[in-house]
């Protein structure tokens, strides 16, 4: 396969996730609204919001520095690059050899750092609250994520997502460590994406918000970039979970057109299912108090550690 078609597949995938991300957010909102017997905004509402935000002027605080202005682009870029490393419907893409799961965690960590620093930049109290809470959550979520990576890597013998997906697709059997890793990864994903038990994505109540408090000062195209990056991050986590734990329908390069169509359909199905599950979860559980969150993330960390430990036992055979 020539470099041109490899590049085309890679860029096609990058554009696909970018195009799909707002729809995922819209779909989740819609399903949540339906579960609460509201009609809810249409699925494509996030696209309209983004278009409106891009057309609006940017209002900058007087005391904000250059950092405040470049941060949205940095956040978006880091998230998009991370998303490019995750196989969605095709494994073994060109860029996927450039970085593994640890690189993805690092890219997302960098994006979070920039966001927290930008939130502190304007010197408002909300930015400060948001940043400190976000860092508190991240300080626990990131080790948990790394432990999940270790567990999966010990099972599959690689931290490379394409290799892991290939390994998972052809080995069956029950592994309790992987189940623990899955639960831990879901908790981490909920925390990282500011979803309900940790943070409420649709609130503007100051005592509870985390992510929204950080982006409160942004407007116009800057806000659009941040919103898009947030949607992209949600899709990225869903793709990671799908590719590690449910790797059916993935194709490697050189597959035919019909195989492409099937794998794309499988991917869309997985994302829809994940979105439905997320909406259900957000409907049935309540948000936690901020100071209970470390307990939840501690559970994720513990599951990751335990998964790794249990692997050493089964490694003995």
């Amino acid at each position, binding site marked *: 396969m020539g470099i041109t078609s490899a590049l085309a597949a890679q860029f096609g995938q990058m554009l696909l996730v970018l195009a799909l991300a707002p729809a995922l957010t819209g779909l989740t909102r819609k399903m949540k609204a339906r579960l609460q017997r509201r009609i809810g905004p249409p699925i494509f509402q996030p696209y309209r919001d983004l278009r409106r935000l891009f057309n609006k002027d940017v209002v900058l605080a007087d005391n904000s520095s250059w950092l405040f202005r470049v941060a949205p682009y940095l956040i978006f870029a880091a998230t998009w690059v991370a998303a490019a490393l995750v196989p969605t419907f095709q494994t073994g893409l060109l860029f996927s050899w450039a970085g593994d799961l640890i690189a993805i965690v690092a890219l997302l960590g960098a994006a979070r750092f920039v966001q927290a620093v930008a939130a502190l930049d304007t010197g408002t109290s909300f930015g400060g609250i948001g940043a400190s809470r976000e860092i508190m959550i991240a300080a626990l979520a990131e080790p948990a994520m790394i432990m999940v990576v270790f567990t999966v890597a010990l099972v599959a013998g690689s931290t490379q997502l394409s290799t892991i997906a290939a390994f998972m697709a052809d080995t069956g059997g*029950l592994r*309790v460590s992987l189940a623990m890793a899955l639960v831990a990864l879901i908790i981490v994903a909920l925390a990282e994406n500011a979803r309900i038990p940790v943070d409420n994505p649709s609130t503007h109540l100051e005592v509870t918000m985390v992510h929204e408090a950080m982006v409160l000062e942004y407007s116009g195209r800057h806000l659009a970039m941040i919103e898009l990056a947030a949607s992209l991050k949600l899709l990225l986590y869903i793709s990671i979970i799908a590719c590690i734990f449910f790797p059916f329908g993935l194709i490697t390069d050189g597959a035919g057109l019909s195989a492409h169509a099937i794998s794309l359909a499988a991917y869309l199905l997985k994302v829809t299912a994940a979105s439905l599950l997320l909406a259900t979860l957000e409907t049935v559980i309540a948000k936690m108090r901020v100071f209970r969150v470390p307990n939840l993330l501690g559970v994720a960390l*513990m*599951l990751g*550690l*335990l998964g790794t*430990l*249990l692997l050493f036992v*089964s490694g003995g055979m």
Partner: protein
Amino acid sequence: MSPSPLAFDIAHMFAGGLVLVSFMMLYQDRLLPLINVLSLHSLLLALSVAWQAHIQDKPDLYVTAVIALGFKSIVIPMALRRMVVRMELHREVEVAVGTGMTMLLGIGLVALSMDLMLRVTAGANALVREDVALALSVVLLGLLMMVTRRNAISQVIGFMSIENGLILGGAGARGMPLVVEISVAFSVLVAFIVIGIFLFRIRERFDTVDLQALDRFRGEHR
């Protein structure tokens, strides 16, 4: 006898699940949910022992499984629940040592037992090794639970989970003789009844089942 990979995976899943449920016990600080967790713990033990009976082809282990299911998963949790409701403890939130610290200690204990057991049982068959290692972790986690809790009922639950761990180890290793098994089950039941009576006596005398009251009574610190 070397077990097939699938049989091993299933045994590993049940035993690993048991360790996980032990952690859930450490995490849970309200009494009624804690009793439910104990019930789940015993249910998993019963499944695990039944699976061992199946792959080792030892019918007497099925009896162990049934005892675990009947007594420890149904009768004792029901009795405990009645006790909690009668003593009006079901609204109490227990001040544990601190969930994070307890969890870290627990992880440390699991790591310790794996390291120890995998060395000691180096020559044995894989099924026995993982079973014994995980059983030791369950026992140590039960002890940790008894150390970190102050409420007498959670200490009883910790004690029950230690016993579950012992049975898991016994079932995995060579299978306990049935007589030993039944006598252990009954001694646990007797211990349970004694503890139950004891609990009511403590409550009558001190108006609480918080064991720090005993410390004060004996004149130890504070």
